[in-house]
């Protein structure tokens, strides 16, 4: 056995050692990190599913397009305008009756569950007689 080892060239021994070093320095940590990340990802997915089930929505968000959004929103609200501001950024104006404010709130709560979008953190309300116009900026993900 020792004779066999002695017969292995230095380059070969160096390559074997390098393989072992790379295995423990790089491969094992990356593999462990991967399996740890798998767990984290599954937790996130579980959280998302819980949220979807809370609002009774299918966990299948749509890619945002102005036309699709307008079409969907007009099923709930009387007037909806979608204007493109920038690439992937849109201004949305929704007109509702004052008494329908709750519907609007529910709509906003579920907006990012239905579409892959982000609301730009501000809601602007303007009231005229018995209607309220709400303006919000959304960004596509």
């Amino acid at each position: 056995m020792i004779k066999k080892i002695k017969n292995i060239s230095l380059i070969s021994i160096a390559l074997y050692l390098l393989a072992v070093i790379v295995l423990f320095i790089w491969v094992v940590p990356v593999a462990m990190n991967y399996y740890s990340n798998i767990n984290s990802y599954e937790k996130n997915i579980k959280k998302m599913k819980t949220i979807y089930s809370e609002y009774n929505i299918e966990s299948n968000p749509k890619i945002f397009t102005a036309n699709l959004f307008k079409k969907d929103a007009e099923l709930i609200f009387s007037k909806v305008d979608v204007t493109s501001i920038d690439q992937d950024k849109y201004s949305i104006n929704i007109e509702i009756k004052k008494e329908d404010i709750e519907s609007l709130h529910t709509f906003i709560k579920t907006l990012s569950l239905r579409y892959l979008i982000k609301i730009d953190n501000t809601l602007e309300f303007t009231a005229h007689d018995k209607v309220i116009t709400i303006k919000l900026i959304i960004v596509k993900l």
Partner: protein
Amino acid sequence: MQNQQYVTITHYKEREFYFLNYAIQTKDGFIPKEIEQFHESEKNQFIDRIYTLQSKYPKNQIISLSLSENQIVKDREEANQVCAKIFNSNYVMQEKIDVGTIPVTLYFSPFSILYEEYKHKLNDKLTLMIGLFDRKLYIMFVTEDKIHQSWTLGTRGLTEKQVAERVNKSMKAYYKISYKFADNIKMLVADDSPKLLKVLREELSVNILPTQKTIHNILHNMGSEQSKFNSSYIKTFLSSPLKDVSPLDQSELSALLPSNESKENHSLNDIRLNNSKIDGNNALINNSFLDKIKRLFAVVPLLLVLSIGGYFTVLNNNIEEKIIFADKRLNIQENNINLVTKSEEIFSSMGKSAELKNATISTKSVKVKGIVWGIEPLRNSLNKLYNEGEFIIKPLENFMTEFSFKSKP
């Protein structure tokens, strides 16, 4: 007294002739006697002559030289081949030894002889060693620690110019695989060929200081000290000749020979020397080529580890991207809920005490304007939500009251 002398008996075969010589070994060197020549047809007389010398000088070594073209230098010993050690990590091997019934106790390869001749002149610079024996060139590229490459060239039937060109091509071929030229060239010439030497010098464009010695003298020198042949003779053929020729007695033999020689018969199957039918670069036999291929397999574990590492890295990058995206969506959802909660709180505060004109609501700040009927309830509820906010009342001409509220920045 004469029979107490240590004598080296040397012989080799060149074409159809056996050449025999013996020398008395003394502390000041060896004293060679006259060279005897026997034709193939006189083989029995030739062998008898060796026996006679043995009888006359019981302390002897019978030394010969393998002029086989099928010799290869490897960096490890192979059990089924006859071999001799050169350097710490090189072994010269060959398939078979054609000494037949001719007595031999020490059998050398030209590679071993070359090493013995020049080993004290080696350093870390690459040296090209060329040995010319029986119209064959034994070539090796060496440094002080090992042989990097070796091969043999047959020169029979070639002109001196063609031989020189082959040596030059060999050097170029070696450069192609190692990107190194030899810094020094050493040449040991056992053949009397001054013209070849001259052409080689011209072709290689370097200074060669050749050592010219007869094969007999080279072999006498190899057998002169145990340290010279201790490991460098070709092992494994000793068993039968020893019985036949009854050389030194066992204790004397053990003093001269290494103690661990194998007495197994081995068969070589390996190397083919180049001959004159092979042209140019094809004449170059890369003796260590197979070894290099084997050495490449040492890379396999490393490649495997790198592949697995690469595979997990790609998977990990993908899963990390997914985690980042999922985290982002969770944060967005949480932010949306907070935003709606703020809005609900503002509308709930106004209740029936006020009516909205306009408002800008974010999770960080609120700005509201409207008509108020119950000033104090509105002020209280807004202040409860946003402590130290700015609440302003403004009477209107139509006897109504306008309010505005701004949270503290």
